[in-house]
């Protein structure tokens, strides 16, 4: 019998033809492959969030094979002997089993947790990049809003995930969630009872949080990520101003092959870091916290880092209870419901607020350096400072203990700094921005300081400056201030020649240094 040999070399080509005959994919595929991505390290931050999310889906799926989100009380009888004979919920027991009795379960749990922390961190840093460079401006307001919502959805998703193992810390977190829900005027206790299916803790909150954690929120996040990426493809990347880069074009490399390959590599490296951390660095050792008991707590009880600012405001907010018509508005309502609500809306609407304030209706595809928009940069610094005071206050007991400071002093310092530090940060940032601008203008006008001191025939000493472009009759540079990065050291314009490549031995001979004559005398 004659066997027909498959021609592997032409297989991709032939199958591509077959596919295109049926689906007419050639043009849209090529358009996607030819999409140009500008190159800058700060554009990778959002990618870290995306890749962490993929790791979350993978590890989360593994965990869901073994986790039992039930609040039924059982007696533990497993290999972790310190907890033997102790009553706990099935949720906590199955989390112990994942950690001790499922092969490779612990690394999956720890990778899941580290990936979640990284996901949130990458979102925050990415958001700061977008904010401080003005990438959110028209036409990208919608994508800013989606990204901002992704932070809060990730926040909730993380909170659910932190809550469902039903350990000592997460149960306390649930109790705080219950107290915050009940603090809402008029409907508070009804909302709390609806959420917990009765009085805290009840028996339904963990199954409910579980379905929110593994189905509803991931689905919403996935949908919003898809929309986020779709808008990015549709609207194309912003880019930094620079030679050849205008508001009308994108300069960079095409998606295929260059960007796709680098992106794939970056995914793998993100994954590698998470895998390494999940294996080597312990996170959330729930067996040390014990099962949730309403009467047990320890000091240094902190939530995950992205929730700490909320813990901080709960610590700092003064004990101002309001009584109206024999009813109570607890102070936590202002701290944990109203304040986050204000933050969400301010952040969500910021692109529109800024456009309105600046009377700016133009399309913007070129990024701005933070120094060129001092007001926005100052506002951002203000927000970051506000957040940092709350974040640190969320761990003020740990700080007080390690640095031997009075706990009450920490609380008062937090309260005072929360009011004083943000305006101070605004003012300082504003001045720094103006200073940096001024220095840029000075270099444009007078050139780069070369470090070469000359003595004129009349005895005067002066430093030789290297102009960046053509100069007028007074020796002042003619280049306009464009908001692009300006070289400020001679080696940035190649005066010193490139660094020698190679780790142990030079990989290639360094080019000869430029002749001195090339430096233009002032």
């Amino acid at each position, binding site marked *: 019998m004659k066997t027909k040999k498959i021609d592997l070399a032409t297989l991709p080509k032939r199958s591509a033809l077959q596919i295109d005959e049926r689906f007419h994919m050639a043009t849209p595929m090529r358009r996607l492959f*030819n999409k*140009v991505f500008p190159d800058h390290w700060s554009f990778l931050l959002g990618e870290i969030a995306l890749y962490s999310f993929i790791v979350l889906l993978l590890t989360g799926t593994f965990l869901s094979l073994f986790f039992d989100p039930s609040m039924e009380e059982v007696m533990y009888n497993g*290999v*972790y002997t310190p907890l033997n004979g102790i009553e706990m919920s099935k949720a906590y027991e199955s989390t112990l089993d994942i950690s*001790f*009795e499922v092969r*490779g379960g*612990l690394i999956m749990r720890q990778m899941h947790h580290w990936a979640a922390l990284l996901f949130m961190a990458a979102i925050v840093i990415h958001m700061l990049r977008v904010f401080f460079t003005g990438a959110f401006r028209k036409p990208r307001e919608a994508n800013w809003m989606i990204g901002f919502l992704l932070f809060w959805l990730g926040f909730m998703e993380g909170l659910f995930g932190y809550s469902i193992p039903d350990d000592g810390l997460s149960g*306390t977190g649930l*109790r*705080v969630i219950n*107290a*915050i829900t*009940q603090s809402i005027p008029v*409907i*508070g206790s*009804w909302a709390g*009872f*609806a*959420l917990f*299916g*009765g009085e*805290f803790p009840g028996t339904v909150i963990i199954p409910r949080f579980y379905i929110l954690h593994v189905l509803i929120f991931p689905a919403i996040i996935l949908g919003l990520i898809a929309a986020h990426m779709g808008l990015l493809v549709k609207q194309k990347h912003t880019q930094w101003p620079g030679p*050849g880069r205008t*508001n*009308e*074009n*994108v300069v960079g*490399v*095409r998606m295929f*092959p*260059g960007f796709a*390959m*680098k992106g*794939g*590599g*970056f995914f*793998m*490296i993100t*994954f*590698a870091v998470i895998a*390494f951390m*999940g*294996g*080597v660095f312990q996170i959330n050792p729930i067996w040390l916290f014990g099962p*949730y008991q*309403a*009467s*047990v*707590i320890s000091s240094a009880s902190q939530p995950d880092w992205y929730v700490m600012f909320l813990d901080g405001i*709960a610590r*700092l907010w003064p*004990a101002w209870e309001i009584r109206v018509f024999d009813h*109570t*508005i607890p102070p*936590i309502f202002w*701290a944990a419901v109203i304040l986050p609500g204000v933050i969400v809306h301010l952040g969500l609407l910021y692109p529109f607020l800024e456009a309105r304030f600046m009377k700016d209706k133009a399309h913007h595809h070129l990024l701005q350096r933070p120094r060129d928009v001092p007001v926005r940069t100052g506002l951002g610094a203000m927000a970051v400072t506000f957040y940092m005071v709350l974040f640190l206050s969320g761990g003020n007991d740990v700080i007080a203990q390690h640095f031997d400071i009075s*706990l009450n002093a920490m*609380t008062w310092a937090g309260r005072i700094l929360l009011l004083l530090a943000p305006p101070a940060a605004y003012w300082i940032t504003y001045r720094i921005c103006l200073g940096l601008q001024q220095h840029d203008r000075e270099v444009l006008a007078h050139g780069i300081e070369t470090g070469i001191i000359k003595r004129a025939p009349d005895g005067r000493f002066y430093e030789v400056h290297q102009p960046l472009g053509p100069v007028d009759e007074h020796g002042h540079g003619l280049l306009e201030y464009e908001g692009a990065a300006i070289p400020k050291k001679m080696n940035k314009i190649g005066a010193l020649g490139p660094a020698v490549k190679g780790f142990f031995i030079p*990989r290639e001979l360094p080019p000869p240094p430029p002749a001195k004559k090339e430096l233009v005398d002032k």
Partner: protein
Amino acid sequence: MSSQDNNSTFDPEDPSLTRFDLVREGARRDGVEIVHYEPRFPVPGTKAEKRVERNIALWFLATGVGALVFVVAYIWWPWEYHAGSGRDKFYTPILGVGLGLALLGLGAAQIIWAKRLLPSEISVQDRHNEVDTTEQKLTGVTLLNMNDELGVTRRRPLLKGALAFGMLPLGAAAIVPLGGMIKDPHKGEPLMKTGFDAKEFNKGKPVRLVREDGTPVRPQDVSVGGQITAFPGVDHGTTNVHADSPTLLIHLRDDDAREARKNLANKAVNALTDANDPNSGGMWENFVAYSKICTHLGCPASLYEQQTNRLLCPCHQSQFQITDNAKPIFGPATRRLPMLPITVDEEGFFVAKSDYKVPVGAAFWERP
């Protein structure tokens, strides 16, 4: 645009065209101009190029080694947990290092390949910012403005009304099933009660204070200046079913007890009902019992400072003065910790004279 003409004259079968010519033409049709595309190593096979290739190969090798470590360790390394130190403690770290190395190798190889072997490229893509108003108009009248055909607003007002009548209840029908979650918080007023409510949980008999293991507490069980966590001696009293009931039972020193008793008058519900009977208020002898559930957000307020008689909640650092009806003296809590009125029954065990007289835990709207 001239691309139409170019498209018609461009012959993809022209044998003189190189592969790159085709790539460039494809890109051009997508509004992308490849302005710079040069191989990293114009002369193939140089030592420098070989070095890059070896570098990449090494990283792929690392991937293989790391993945092998992961797989072999996953299957054969002793993973089952044993107390104390042992080889099983290295199971997770080995998996992490193996998997990390494998993925790092794959990532590094790809990035080095892209950066050092793929031709260096600068492409410029047109953004097409301009808006085609004709297109907008054509789409608008056909898709969005169908009033001529549907005529809902002018010619057929009946349909408009009927549609609204049909859709509004349907919208409501989509939401009301969530009503299944609603539970009346005032049915039996569980927020106002704890496990020390004798009528509801103990057939009217005063509820004993018990330890976590369920054993009742005698006065001599708590040393002077000491404290224990007590629970209601009812069914599931020590479990989370009665999460609002944990109580801190404190044995005050004589001086402190005197002060605490004097201060009972500051809080009406704790005060002595009979001026001649020192045990007629919330205290019994030198003992006080306060709810352990913080009035701020419900954490257990459990750090007791003996010297100052302050109780600190470790979650948000509210501090309560035990000798003055657990008055909040620092931090975010607004309200005192409720006092559990206690006495000793005929067998010498602590019992609650009644349930807490004010709701325990975090505040809420209906809280009096």
